[in-house]
């Protein structure tokens, strides 16, 4: 067995956390809370390490002999400026908040707009990409909920038949989502148990 110590620690920590979650009684609750706090701290450190690794990757791309990527320079410069500003001014400083609201929000919002156009084009080419009854059902449901969501039919929602139909239609995605979520939950359970049992060891290295 590879990395037996890591496996033992993983199994012990996971088991205690699970039992402490299901049976929130002392001292299991305290152990669980402590372990979770350590996990959160480790995740934060891991995030920091990953950020430094990200910087190293972009530095390598910038200084590569072949296929230099000059866009990495923008990332490195932006990071340095933001980092220094945050250290000096603190996150609550209005200037720092303007970096978020005036740079990050517009960029991400514009990407979301591109996503809307991309999804529209994908919906137009749906039948070109794949056919079958699933695609027909998908197209019909998308059309219906687009119309309903636009509020176009809200003015006529007082019509009894239409009201009932709309109510029934609104319930359909809920049922489908529930089924998918139950399946996802079961899959998450078995996947987590594989880690707890030691058969899956992504940390073995």
């Amino acid at each position, binding site marked *: 067995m590879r990395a037996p110590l890591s496996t033992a620690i993983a199994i012990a920590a996971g088991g205690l956390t699970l039992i402490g979650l299901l049976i929130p009684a002392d001292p299991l609750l305290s152990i669980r809370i402590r372990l979770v706090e350590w996990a959160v701290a480790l995740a934060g450190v891991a995030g920091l390490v990953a950020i430094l690794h990200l910087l190293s990757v972009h530095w390598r791309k910038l200084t590569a002999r072949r296929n230099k990527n000059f866009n990495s320079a923008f990332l490195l410069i932006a990071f340095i400026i933001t980092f220094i500003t945050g250290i000096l001014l603190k996150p609550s400083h209005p200037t720092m908040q303007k970096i978020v609201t005036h740079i990050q929000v517009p960029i991400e*919002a514009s990407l979301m707009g591109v996503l809307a156009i991309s999804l529209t084009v994908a919906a137009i080419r749906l039948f070109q990409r794949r056919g079958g009854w699933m695609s027909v059902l998908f197209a019909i449901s998308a059309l219906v909920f*687009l119309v309903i969501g636009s509020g176009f039919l809200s*003015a006529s929602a007082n019509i009894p038949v239409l009201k009932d139909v709309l109510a029934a239609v609104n319930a359909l995605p809920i049922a489908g989502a529930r089924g998918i979520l139950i399946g996802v939950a079961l899959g998450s359970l078995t996947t987590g148990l594989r880690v707890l049992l030691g058969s899956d060891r992504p940390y073995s290295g």
Partner: protein
Amino acid sequence: MSEIICPFCGAENPIEAVACFNCKKQLYDDVDPDASPPPRDEMEWLKDFRGFADDRSAGTIKATEADQSSETGETTTGDEESDVPEWLARIRALKEDETPAPAEEEPVEPEELPAYLGNEAELPDWIKEIKQGDVPQPLEEAGGDMPEWLKNMAGPDELPAAEDITPDLSMISPESGAEGGIQLPDIPYDLPGEEPAEVDLGQFTPLTDDTVDEAVDIPDDLFEAIASQPEPEQPPEPTPAEPQDDLDWLDTDITQPEPTEIKEEEPTDSGDLPEWMFEPAETEADTVPEPGELDFTTLDASLAAIDGENMPAAQSEAALPDWLLEDEAENFANQAEFQSEGAPNLEVGEMPGWLHAMRPLEAAAPELASPMDENRVEPTGPLAGYQGLLPGEGVVTQYSRPPVYSARMQVTDKQRIYATLFETLIVDETRVGAPPAEKSTTPQLVLRMSVGLVLIGVILMALIFNPGLAASPTLVPPESVVFFDTLQNLTAAATPPRVLVGLDYEPSLSGELSTIAASVVEDWMAGNSGLAFVSLNLSGPALADDLVNKAGARVPTYLAAERVINLGYLPGGATALAALAADPTRAAPASVDGIQAWNSLLLQGMVAVSDFDAIVLLTDNTENTRAWIEQVKPAVGSTPLLVVSSAQAAPALQPYVQSGQITGMISGFTGGAAYEQLTQAQNGSIRSYWDAYQAGMLLIAAFMLLGSLGFGIMNIFRRTKKA
């Protein structure tokens, strides 16, 4: 054309020839073979040529030649004498010594000589050679051609001089000898050929000047021994068409002096030719002419038509002995198989046993599968006329295409079947389908640009012009109604409520959620509610401040600095919520400004989340909402949990709404519009975007419908075409 080709064997013959030299067949149909001269002895032609009778002696010939040469003024020279082999000259000399002096004979008058003999200018070369050959050559001059045994017999000094040798030519032309013609040496012709005997060289005494005149007895088997001697410098064997080449030795000068008498062991009859001179004839060949006196007179007719350069007319079969027309090697090869046909005078010899054992291996070898045609006469080439040759002509002259060997592999039927089976098994593996056509991205990019431009254009137009075409929703979802009612009840209370606001959406969806939440926050601000913001993502605190500023601008009387506190970012997701639910003072002890939040005026006296009057969750994802519901709701008890969600998360949160875990919910622009409808806000933020929102949605629906119909119909047609 000076030659005629024999129709039977293809040999070349002189134009004057009547019969073929090779096969002895008549060349002309109109020639009466009976008209040919009667068969004569084998050597009669020689006698005719020489013009001697049987009793003519060599000396007579010599004298005659001397007379003729004196008449013609032709003198014999040493070169002419050198044409006669020494051995022959010696033989002649010996012969002359043996034979008695001929009777007085009247020398042949020059005018009585055949015309051809008189006029040497008209004589063919071969006759001249014969005439010249009568003069024996000095031994030393012809030493290279003389066999050793003959050289040993007489030394260079012992040989008589050429002028002293007078060959006896009487044997050659016994008939003409009466006319006093040339006398050739009496060469015995009746020597036994079948029974070659050992040549006893001891019986020969070396010739000296004294003995050269003595007649030398030449044993009968001498000539056979001579014939058996290899002659290294023998010229190529003549063809039957050129018999005259063998006759060069006969070209002795008839004017040679009297040959000296040579002692011979056995006197020979000048008129009888030795048997060894008569070569074995082929079975199909002509009959061997009887060895007899040569009749040179018969040559008159033929020689008269002789051109100087042409060959003499072919004699009849009986005129020319076969041995002159055949090769010696052939004679030797046929010796073992020699059958004397047509040679009644020749006794069939019995080969001794020891000789039979010594016979060539080829004779004892088994016959070939395709035995060589022994009777086949070579028609052309340098070996024309010879028999028993390998048929080289057919190989050399008859070219044929080389055999073509097939390079194809020979496959049996069974192997072919197995190969076919194997091929069918692997044909699918090796079959390469047509590569798919390379997709071009240009139509896709054009479509994207077109759709994007149209969408942006329509939305901008709606935003700018705000036509007000979109009707506000009249039907409000119940959860939105509950949300509104809860908010109204709390804000209408005597004590302003303190609300925990969880800001859990990304900057990418802040456009939707901040627009919807702004209306809600405005209503809470209008009720002078205390708001404590907490966030589960990094950009939450900044978004919270932005939301407060946006909403506060609509409610100028709200003192945000006193009534709003920002608890900042809570790391850890669900665990952070669990910790918040368990002890919020420990989970979020300070605000983003660094002040002790739970000691501030707003949160004074609060130690648990249940102390809040309401929890409002601004979220765009289901997972975080579920975490809030799972972690915080149990801790708050009956405190209402109000959710403002994005449209994408609404369906997943409905179960929680239906179960009562979520008290009230506003989802998406539609829910916000419905909420504004309930609050009857005239200048609500959602109202300003409602037309653009509805136009965009309907346009997307239209695009989708058109695209689905268009590509769907194309797929149907494509499938129909394939079918």
